[in-house]
């Protein structure tokens, strides 16, 4: 009596599981901490949306592994005069709807960014017009020379879209329709749950390694880490310190720590006493134990920042900064006329990390006789009130999204950028202004680097900020995931990722 029925059952199960194995390896599931807002690259410019968009849409140029500018949809470029850049475009690129990619699409995209206006339109403020020279050549004409233009063009918000798909989709562009040129094609978006993308089989470059990409939004950090642990997702972005601690050493998981383009800082209102005295600002820098902030608040997911720029930004100085020296701090305070310290306040919003920084800061400053009151201001008012200069000190962050020092310094330290644009310290220095203006237009990279080096030295010496940290990001993945390349700006491209 041959147990044929058992044999059949086993066979069916084997096939079923083999099927599961093969199909499973073709779907990559990634979890991030929030849902996208819109998939329109010219829409709301937030991290969760950008992380999905960079799989679907492409820019003229890209950032390479070392943040150098490499070809994207443009295969080569040349600056033909002070204000004109010529781009030669790739010639056999098709949009996901079959339309061919041409120079007209570049013109349409940049005009759309300016007309909407895209919330990131300011990135191409320097662009006067886009001229179609022939189907595969464009001229981007600037208002005045702007050295960082290539870095700005690499930003995901300046991606190229297809006119026909935008016009046909109307309101639905970005939610029901998202047609780009990238390695993944948009399939479906279940609002609040996940976005499903499939491999673009007609991709003009190196095709994606997985067939299906699912990007889920899981806001609770611990649950996101648990999904990684149980294999519910293959990659989980932004593992927070407590979960990093718990997951380190877990078999089957890889934790990839990488640098970002983000810094956190404490800004002084340099127009208010006593912060108008540089010695007071320097004293506070000396009084701060930044290593403790890194170790206890960020539990290692950060590095001390000696200066204003995150280390990966082009031209960032490897600056010593102010070492932890409370004695020196007290001496400087005395010299400035505050031997017994003074009372002041520090503002923070309800971000948990920032609140902890504020408390540590309070304790550190108490050691040198400065009595700091911590004021927690809701985010909705935080930006407005700090823009109005109502504060003494405040905690904030900055992301140098273009990896170029102009973006990392101009808005924060130029005297024309007081308030909302970014300079909430109300710092004004003629020489720094001069340097920042020069850096914007200088074409020669070596001269440019020297300009920004001098600007950074000034800024560190004048200390309009208490320099804190440059953040690091920890992304977790199952150990059968290969080829993950973290992008310091946080929008990691996933076409190189495969599952063993």
């Amino acid at each position, binding site marked *: 009596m041959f147990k044929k029925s058992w044999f059949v059952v086993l066979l069916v199960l084997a096939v079923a599981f083999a099927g599961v194995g093969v199909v499973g390896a073709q779907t990559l599931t990634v979890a991030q901490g929030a849902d996208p807002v819109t998939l329109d690259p010219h829409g709301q410019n937030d991290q969760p949306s950008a992380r999905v968009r960079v799989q679907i849409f492409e820019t003229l140029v890209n950032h390479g592994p070392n943040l150098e500018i490499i070809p994207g949809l443009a295969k080569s470029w040349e600056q033909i005069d002070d204000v004109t850049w010529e781009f030669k475009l790739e010639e056999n690129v098709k949009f996901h709807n079959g339309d061919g990619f041409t120079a007209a699409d570049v013109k349409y995209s940049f005009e759309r960014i300016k007309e909407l206006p895209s919330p990131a339109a300011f990135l191409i403020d320097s662009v006067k017009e886009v001229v179609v020279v022939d189907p595969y050549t464009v001229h981007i004409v600037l208002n005045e020379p702007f050295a960082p233009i290539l870095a700005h063009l690499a930003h995901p918000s300046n991606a190229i879209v297809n006119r026909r798909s935008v016009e046909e989709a109307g309101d639905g562009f970005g939610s029901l329709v998202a047609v780009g040129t990238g390695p993944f094609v948009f399939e479906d978006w*279940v609002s609040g*749950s996940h976005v499903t993308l499939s491999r673009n089989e007609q991709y003009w470059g190196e095709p994606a390694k997985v067939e299906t990409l699912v990007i889920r939004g899981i806001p*609770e950090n*611990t649950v996101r880490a648990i999904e990684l642990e149980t294999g519910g997702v293959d990659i989980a972005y932004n593992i927070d310190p407590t979960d990093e601690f718990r997951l380190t050493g877990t078999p089957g998981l890889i934790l990839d720590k990488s640098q970002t383009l983000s810094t956190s800082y404490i800004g002084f209102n340099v127009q208010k006493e006593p912060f108008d005295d540089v010695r007071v600002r320097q004293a506070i820098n000396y009084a701060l134990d930044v290593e403790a902030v890194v170790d206890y608040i960020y539990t290692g997911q950060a590095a001390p920042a000696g200066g204003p720029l995150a280390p990966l930004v082009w031209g960032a100085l490897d600056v010593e900064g102010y070492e932890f020296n409370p004695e020196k701090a007290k001496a400087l305070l005395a010299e400035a006329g505050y031997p017994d310290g003074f009372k002041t306040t520090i503002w923070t919003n309800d971000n948990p990390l920032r609140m902890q920084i504020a408390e540590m800061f309070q304790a550190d400053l108490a050691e040198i006789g400065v009595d700091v009151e911590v004021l927690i201001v809701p*985010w909705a008012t935080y930006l407005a009130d700090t823009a109005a200069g109502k504060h003494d000190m405040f905690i904030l*962050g900055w992301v140098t999204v273009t990896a170029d020092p102009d973006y990392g310094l101009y*808005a924060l330290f130029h005297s024309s950028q007081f308030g909302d644009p*970014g300079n909430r310290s109300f710092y004004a220095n003629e020489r720094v202004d001069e340097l920042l203006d020069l850096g914007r237009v200088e074409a020669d990279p070596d001269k440019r680097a020297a300009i920004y080096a001098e600007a950074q030295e000034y800024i560190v010496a004048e200390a309009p900020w208490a320099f804190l940290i440059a953040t690091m990001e920890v992304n977790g993945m199952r150990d059968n995931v290969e080829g993950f390349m973290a992008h310091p700006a946080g929008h990691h491209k996933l076409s190189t990722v495969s599952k063993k």
Partner: protein
Amino acid sequence: MWRYIIRRLLSLIPVLIGISLFVFLLMHLTPGDPAQLMLGEGAPAHQLEALRESMGLNEPWHIQYINWLKNAIRLDFGHSLRSKKAVATEILDRLPATAELAIAAVSIAVLIGVPVGILSASKPNSTFDNIAMVGALTGVGMPAFWQGIMLILLFSVTFQLLPSSGRLGGWQYLVLPAVTLGTAATASIARLTRSAMLDVLQQDYVRTARAKGLRSRRVVYRHALRNALIPVVTMIGLQFGGLMSGAVLTETIFAWPGIGRMLVEAINNKDFPLVQGTIMTFALTYALVNLLVDVLYAFLDPRLRTTYE
């Protein structure tokens, strides 16, 4: 009965308008500028202005409200300031998930809470009763975020029986969120059913029924329960209405794509049209659920039927 229902529905209109005005004022009078919040720490002045203009925020607030009202009457609730999607689309995309969770949670609450309440009332101060009531107290006392994560650790990580989060198709995803959400409701309904039953069981007509020699079960289920259910049905309605407004904590922990999470984000972003539309939806849902409950009363208690003429 129909006249009553129609009267109730018509009276909703001034209520909804009043709520919309109230929400509008709250959103506009509290600090925070959606354009500024959108742009974040680096908001060049001209970009800020251009965004504000494109969002229609430069109009005086009463003009903005009237514009909104004019469109709302034609059932056009505008577009989300952030995603640019139609508000109606945003809401309808997320409503089924919330409805599913609310129905599941209320079902658990009713299927467990009512029988437990009845049994407790039939044997007051027995061991079962004491355990049940302590259990109920614990259920109400457990915070959702703690309970949710505990359930995930137990059933997803340790026993690997259920998925940890998401709504990706299949009843397995519904279990843990529904249990988390339903626990407090179960506890409340159990306690209320018990006390309502105890109340009713003391009534004269119940004593009469027992004196007539009817079996205890028949007394409880045929005579007492229907009357005890009136306050319970009210509570079930209130619970359901509340759950339909979205359980933000549960939705956040389980990454459940519901409406509560969406509303909280919209409020933080000062996304006026989305907040307005969502709260209108809640108000409508709540009012309709209450209407349903009132109609149900008529079936439960024939004496009330005449008041509905």
